[in-house]
């Protein structure tokens, strides 16, 4: 039996704790998209969960620290990754004499899904 709309309103808590099964997760996220009340609750519960996470903080192992130090170099973030669409457009227009490759790489970056 699928949960009714009223039931869905009560899933914000378990959603924020990543404690939903896949079937209910899909239902709730569809609901969440259009429900400001649940959006607000989810954010608040995620903030609370963040504090639960803080309570378990542990010193970072050296290997992890070394890895993180190298992250920007390994998956470089081009400066234009944070540009607006219009900035990007101007940049691409401005470099028309440049290589097609740059255009392609810009296009590829901007076509990435908003969230992984």
């Amino acid at each position, binding site marked *: 039996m699928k949960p009714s709309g009223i039931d869905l309103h009560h899933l*914000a808590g378990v959603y924020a704790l990543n404690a939903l099964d896949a079937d209910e997760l899909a239902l709730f996220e569809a609901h969440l998209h259009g429900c400001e009340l649940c959006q607000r609750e989810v*954010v608040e519960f*995620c*903030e609370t969960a963040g*504090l639960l996470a803080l309570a378990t903080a542990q010193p970072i192992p*050296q290997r992890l620290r070394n890895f993180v130090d190298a*992250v920007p170099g390994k998956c470089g*973030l081009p400066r234009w990754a944070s540009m607006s669409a219009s900035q990007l457009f101007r940049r691409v227009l401005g470099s028309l004499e440049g290589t097609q490759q740059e255009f392609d790489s810009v296009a590829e970056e901007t076509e990435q899904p*908003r969230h*992984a």
Partner: protein
Amino acid sequence: MLKRNTGAKGHADIGAGALADQLAPVMTRCGQGDEGAFVRIYDELGSLVYGIILKVLRDPAQSEEVAQEVFTEVWRQAPRYEPGKGSVKGWIATIAHRRAVDRVRSEQSARNREDRDAVERHVDLTSAVEDLVGDELERQRVRVALQTLTEVQRKAVELAYYGGYTYREVAVLLDEPEGTVKTRIRDGLIRLRDEIGVSS
């Protein structure tokens, strides 16, 4: 790759608490490719990220792997972070916890799950415990707040969040109806939220 839509969590307006987030401008610079800002983020939140992953996975080696994924995701997603719509801490904790439960629910991890007690014994630590002192007051507040929950609320919240179980699994573990567990988790979170506040 990930089915969960963290965007939904990050895009509701949370109000003044998030606006006061001192890390928000740092994350903005991080999104502009500022490596120094990224270092600051993980100096501030690295122990939180590693700690919650280790709490869920209980395996130091796997936890390091997952933490690497988290920081890589944070760097890549940084341009998409929107200040004022959830704190940096809440945003990153959500990513870290979600990655941890994804891992723990995978087949391989499920097999290892019965054997997770080695966690307290891991030794590859170079940072002194004193590094954590800055957050100690806040952590203490969380522990105190957890004690204000009823026993059944606390168990349900802890099994779900720290144990990485779905609420249906929690219901089986506690031998309670699913609806009851769902309500206890919700009531427990509301209680915690009101005890601690959601400001960062």
